[in-house]
């Protein structure tokens, strides 16, 4: 159903790539990964949504939870390369400002 790739860049940015559908069944998995990264000191995180074929309100909840804990730890969570399904859901929920999609994972913390 879903797989998560988790990586850290040389700059210490955590990169999480959900591959598949981010929904009720998989949202908890994402939340746990994001919490884990923040807990171990990686509070700058990019979620690469380039392979996220579907996103529902539970998946959104996990992203918002991750965003909040990253910011509380002095970092930030940014989203990159959203698919059309993801962009649509961001827009419909008015989250496209707080989760402003970046064009690339590498440049996600540039601005």
């Amino acid at each position, binding site marked *: *159903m879903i797989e998560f790739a988790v990586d850290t860049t040389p700059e210490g940015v955590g990169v999480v790539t959900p591959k598949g*559908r981010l*929904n*009720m*069944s998989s949202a908890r998995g994402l939340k746990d990964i994001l919490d884990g990264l923040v807990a171990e000191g990686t509070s700058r995180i990019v979620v690469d949504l380039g392979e996220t074929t*579907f996103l*529902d*309100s*539970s998946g*959104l*909840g*996990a992203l*918002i*939870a991750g965003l*909040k804990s990253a910011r509380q730890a002095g970092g930030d969570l940014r989203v990159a390369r959203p698919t*059309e*399904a993801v962009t*649509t*859901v961001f827009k*419909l*929920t*008015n*989250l496209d*400002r*707080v989760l402003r999609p970046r064009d690339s994972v590498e440049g996600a913390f540039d601005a």
Partner: protein
Amino acid sequence: MPDPTPREPSDDEGRVELSAPATPEMMQMVHAVLEQLWSNHEDVAMADRIRFETAVIEILGNIVEHAYRLEPGESERRFDVSLSATEAALVASFGDDGMPVSIDLSDVTMPDEDAESGRGLALAMAAVDELSYDRASGRNHWRLTCVRQPG
């Protein structure tokens, strides 16, 4: 010229109906059924597929999560859904035997940016053109309609 008046119930032709246990696993089943439906209706615009699938999965997710039985009996909770794609619209209609839902859909609003839940119904409503709920014969009925974009 195509007739602009709404079509009759015979529009239901071609519909696919599924009845299954109201469990999280069945959400993948519905995704799979929609995937097949799209492959039989390649003319449905990607934007319409996305908003329809989003709303269908939100409503089903709510049934799986919230629609508890009135009397917790022996038998499993189930749902059914009818999915149809006509030239005019994509329509889903759900039935389940959970307890009556005491929500006024006209009160549903999108939660604040930092809410971690509570967006399901608001997202479904924003995604489709019509969302209705009613209770009849001891069952909940949800109906979703996406008016299709001109090809």
